């Protein structure tokens, strides 16, 4: 405001009026700022509220059933209390393992390709289809896996379940890999080429290595996402009430076990379902935490 420039001597009436108006404006802005900040706090609280409620609820209902036996024992018959979900926990870990073995190499490879060949017709097509696949309802993936992997061999299997989950991971990993690789500045690529690195060596030992932290994070997030998937397993891994680690037989999985127990008529099994849910959330939490740690080390020292 130009009028505020001449402060020398006693303030004139006009200057006082201007000062007052400025004061009012500042007060109004401060008030509006506090209101908006307050609203944001509320929004942030609401955002984490569901998770908080879920965790509290799970601990209240399932906490007492999560003990050593839960991790080391199998299910008991209805009516007997105690027992555990050892087979389902191991089954879920095996399924995550198979899914990662399928999803990570394909996803990272495809992501690298998309980042290198940004605008070719194939790259554009693959990118679009990956996005479509990402939005595909998981039940559809399950039916498709059943048609392709279960029906021909006439039996459910851990392998079919793992592959179905792996197929779900592929688009997620592809897109994060592409994003992370594209974040690597072109100048780094040029610096490596100018040093006499071949194209593929530049991609692998400079570009991919620089993007690795972000890719690892993306991979872990994808693993956490598929760890709790139920629908794709209904027609593939099926579930198993006995101990089995065979890849060619139906295998137990936490989400399936939770589902079966929750719809059963027995109170003991309901308690077990809550405990299973708590453990599943725990697994997802640990994977997410690992992702966090991996991100933090991203720009750490070279060795």
């Amino acid at each position, binding site marked *: 405001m130009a009028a505020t420039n001449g402060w020398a001597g006693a303030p004139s009436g006009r200057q006082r009026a201007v000062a007052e108006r400025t004061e009012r404006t500042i007060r109004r802005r401060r008030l509006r700022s506090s209101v908006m900040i307050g609203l944001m706090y509320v929004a942030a609280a609401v955002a984490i509220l569901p998770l908080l409620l879920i965790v509290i609820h799970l601990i209240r209902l399932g906490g007492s059933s999560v003990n050593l036996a839960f991790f080391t024992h199998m299910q008991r018959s209805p009516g007997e209390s105690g027992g555990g979900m050892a087979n389902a926990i191991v089954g879920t870990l095996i399924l995550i393992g198979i899914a990662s073995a399928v999803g990570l190499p394909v996803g990272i490879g495809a992501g690298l390709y998309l980042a290198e060949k940004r605008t070719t017709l194939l790259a554009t097509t693959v990118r679009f289809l990956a996005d479509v696949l990402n939005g595909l309802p998981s039940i559809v993936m399950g039916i498709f896996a059943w048609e392709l992997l279960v029906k021909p061999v006439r039996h459910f299997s851990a392998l079919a379940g793992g592959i179905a989950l792996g197929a779900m991971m592929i688009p997620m990993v592809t897109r994060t890999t592409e994003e992370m690789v594209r974040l690597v500045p072109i*100048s780094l690529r*040029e610096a490596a*080429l100018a040093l*006499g690195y071949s194209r593929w060596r530049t991609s692998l030992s400079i570009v991919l290595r620089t993007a690795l932290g972000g890719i690892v994070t993306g991979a872990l997030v994808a693993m956490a996402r598929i760890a709790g998937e139920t629908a794709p397993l209904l027609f593939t891994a099926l579930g198993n009430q006995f101990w089995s680690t065979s890849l060619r037989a139906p295998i137990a999985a936490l989400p399936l076990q939770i589902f079966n127990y929750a719809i059963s008529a027995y109170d003991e099994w309901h308690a077990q379902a809550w405990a299973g849910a708590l453990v599943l959330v725990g697994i997802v939490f640990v994977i997410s935490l690992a992702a966090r740690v991996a991100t933090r080390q991203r720009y750490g020292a*070279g*060795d």
Partner: protein
Amino acid sequence: MSRPDNATALATDGAPSATNTPASRIVVDQLDAYFAAVHAVRGVSIDLTDRSVTAIIGPSGCGKSTFLRCLNRMHETIPGARVTGQVRLDGQDIYGNGISPVAVRRQVGMVFQRPTPFPTMSIRENVAAGLVVTDRKPGRKQQEEIVERALKRAALWDEVGDRLKMSATGLSGGQQQRLCIARALATDPEVLLLDEPTASLDPISTQKVEELIYELRTDVTVVIVTHNMQQAARVSDQTAFLLGGELIEVAPTENMFTSPQDERTESYITGRFG
């Protein structure tokens, strides 16, 4: 910073039509470079004397960087880019049949406008980055010696010698740029290309890099692209003026800045345009 006295003694006859004297390290013959439809470098011919510093000056967009990137075949890494003409390194055309661009780049090092340390590598690994991809990868012990020598040549050893294992991204901009120079020197290139190496540096770092360039002429052939005419005058033996992709004039630096032959050169160096 004044130009050391013996500089003019090293200046050589750099007329555009100079013939291939034994002292020429690089002979550029009718070089044209294109970006898709854009004709960025037009029929440039120039001789780069062994162990001398050649400065390339000219207004923005005149093709300086593109010309430089043709000398180590980096230009062709850009989609749609194309080169015609010859660049003879020690008599051999680097664009000849069966010549691999990777092999050319190992002989002709390059440092860019902005420092480009590899963020995942330590200081030591950065300097050794070019060594590990050579055909005969030196042993660990030998690598350490080479790293130390390269850092000393780049006048960086005193500052980082005791923290070689630390991340290279923790260094200051000027240190990072000298690290990149050390990285380029570690493979013992015959030619070093510098693309505005001090454009993103403060005056003190700039001075260090300029002194370094001045030192390097004793065993490397240096080509430096610069926007800074004082810099060209300080560090180079020979200066070439590019305009609109054409080589307007090339002469020993002293002559170039005191008595330019072409009117356009004179306008440019006296600041009338560009």
